[in-house]
């Protein structure tokens, strides 16, 4: 039996099964994240949130999905048809494939590759293409302005995010995400790197175009930003892509800073449940921030990225690298 799983066909079947086991819960999670967000924001703003469809409104995501599916997809005249259809697929697809390397439990990733951090960073830096292509292909001024804004924003925040990741992997001594989580066995990186943890999370907000950095879709200025021309399922893909990206950034934060599947209390067993709880807490903070903070002005956003986050993360990186070298804390040295 074990021989069969080592053949090419066996590996293929195994990978497909693993992928299904990860992607199906992930997609359900994405659907219910929309429900969760509306409920939490309702509670924060003293409303009820969705409560009509099904018990407690639990069937609301399915109702929304059916509505989206039955509507007509409108492609504007003068739009670049191929790219117009391709853009939401890119956004959604990239948000999903990033999960290929995230370990939800010890060794439970689909691919346990040596350069997991680089893979994550590469995928999250590709996310900007969905936005730019959508804005350009729509042949609309508002969409184009939104695309330019969010492209500049995502590129700016990626820089400090990269430095934060480098600092984490200096402490972990590995680019492998599994090894990074195991390196946090005694102390989660959120403790010694607390400022970077905050920077990473805020950059994550900017990277996913979430409030208070949702300038790309600033309703009051440019209608809905880059996806203003999208309708029906192509709109739904953008919408779900945003939520999938939120889950992905939460997963990255959990793995890099919050100790992944490791239990916070020594007498409790480690396990996938801890990973889920931590991701859930991160997602709650995402929603909480959206319901609480007003939107940033564009120049403030750029100033925050380049003049505050970048210097702090650079200095922290140099300080951590120096301390690690001086005190001989280098792992696997």
């Amino acid at each position, binding site marked *: 039996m074990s021989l069969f799983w080592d053949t090419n066909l066996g590996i293929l079947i195994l990978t497909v099964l693993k992928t299904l086991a990860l992607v199906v819960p992930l997609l359900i999670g994405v659907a219910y994240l929309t429900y969760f967000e509306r409920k939490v924001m309702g509670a924060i703003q003293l409303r009820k949130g969705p409560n009509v469809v099904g018990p407690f409104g639990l069937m609301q995501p399915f109702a929304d999905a059916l509505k989206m599916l039955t509507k007509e997809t409108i492609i504007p005249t003068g739009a670049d048809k191929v790219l117009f259809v391709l853009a939401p697929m890119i956004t959604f697809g990239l948000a999903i494939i990033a999960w290929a390397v995230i370990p939800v439990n010890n060794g439970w990733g689909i691919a346990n590759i040596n350069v997991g951090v680089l893979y994550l*960073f590469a995928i999250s830096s*590709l996310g900007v*293409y969905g936005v*730019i292509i959508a804005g*350009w292909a729509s042949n609309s001024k508002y969409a184009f302005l939104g695309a330019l804004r969010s492209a500049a924003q995502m590129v700016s925040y990626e820089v400090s995010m990269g430095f934060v990741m480098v600092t984490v992997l200096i402490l972990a001594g590995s*680019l492998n995400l599994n090894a990074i989580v195991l390196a946090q066995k005694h102390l989660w990186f959120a403790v010694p790197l607390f400022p970077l943890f905050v920077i990473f999370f805020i950059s994550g907000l900017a990277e996913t175009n979430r409030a208070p950095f949702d300038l790309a879709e600033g309703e009051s200025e440019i209608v809905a930003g880059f996806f203003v021309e999208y309708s029906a399922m192509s709109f739904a893909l953008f919408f779900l892509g945003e939520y999938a990206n939120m889950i992905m950034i939460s997963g990255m934060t959990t793995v890099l800073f919050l100790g992944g599947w490791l239990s916070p209390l020594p007498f409790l067993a480690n396990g996938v449940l801890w990973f889920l709880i931590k991701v859930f807490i991160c997602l709650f903070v995402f929603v909480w921030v959206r319901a609480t903070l007003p939107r940033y002005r564009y120049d403030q956003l750029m100033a925050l990225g380049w003049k505050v986050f970048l210097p702090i993360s650079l200095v922290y990186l140099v300080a951590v690298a120096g301390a690690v070298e001086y005190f001989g804390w280098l792992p696997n040295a």
Partner: protein
Amino acid sequence: MISNLAFYLFSFILLASAVMVVTSRNPVHAVLFLILGFVNAAVLFLLAGAEFLAFILAIVYVGAVAVLFLFVVMMLDVDFAALHEGFQRYAPVGALVALIMFAELAFIAGNWAIAPSGSANRLFPMPEHVTNTVALGQLIYTSYLPLFQLSGVILLVAMIGAIVLTHRDRQRSLHQNIAVQHARKPEHTLVMVNAKLGEGAALPVQPTEKETL
């Protein structure tokens, strides 16, 4: 077998997208094909086992350089017809260059053979039991540190050069220069003029000195 097939598949896509970069009518499409080419080059690195290089290529070229490139091309107002007028005229020259390059490559590939003792004579043989990220780091930060630093300095110079070339202080904003304000004395700004009765007074004409607020 499968890895060979994958190599041919991805190198075919790479070559096809490279052709499309040159021939596509729309410059934005050309840049998008260029990006597809970068991605496929990264995949080829992966197939060769150079995972670090593959992802660095993806991050630097696809994630940063090509985004800015796409930015610029989208903002430019290019006349597509004028762009393609030259194509006919320069096509023979391009074809000639391509032919020469191809002949040279064929010549090299036909005569190329790695000497049996070649790998033994390498200065830094392929390290075993370490990932190639670690192997690269051990070389770059020890034996080649000065060169590595030097290439960083070259990039810095290029960046400063670009900023110097494009930066223009248009004096549009009123900067407050506190040092100038502190150094200002009453005699710089105040003139006592005695007004005669019935004649009024006018300020004596002075050469005005431009200074920031």
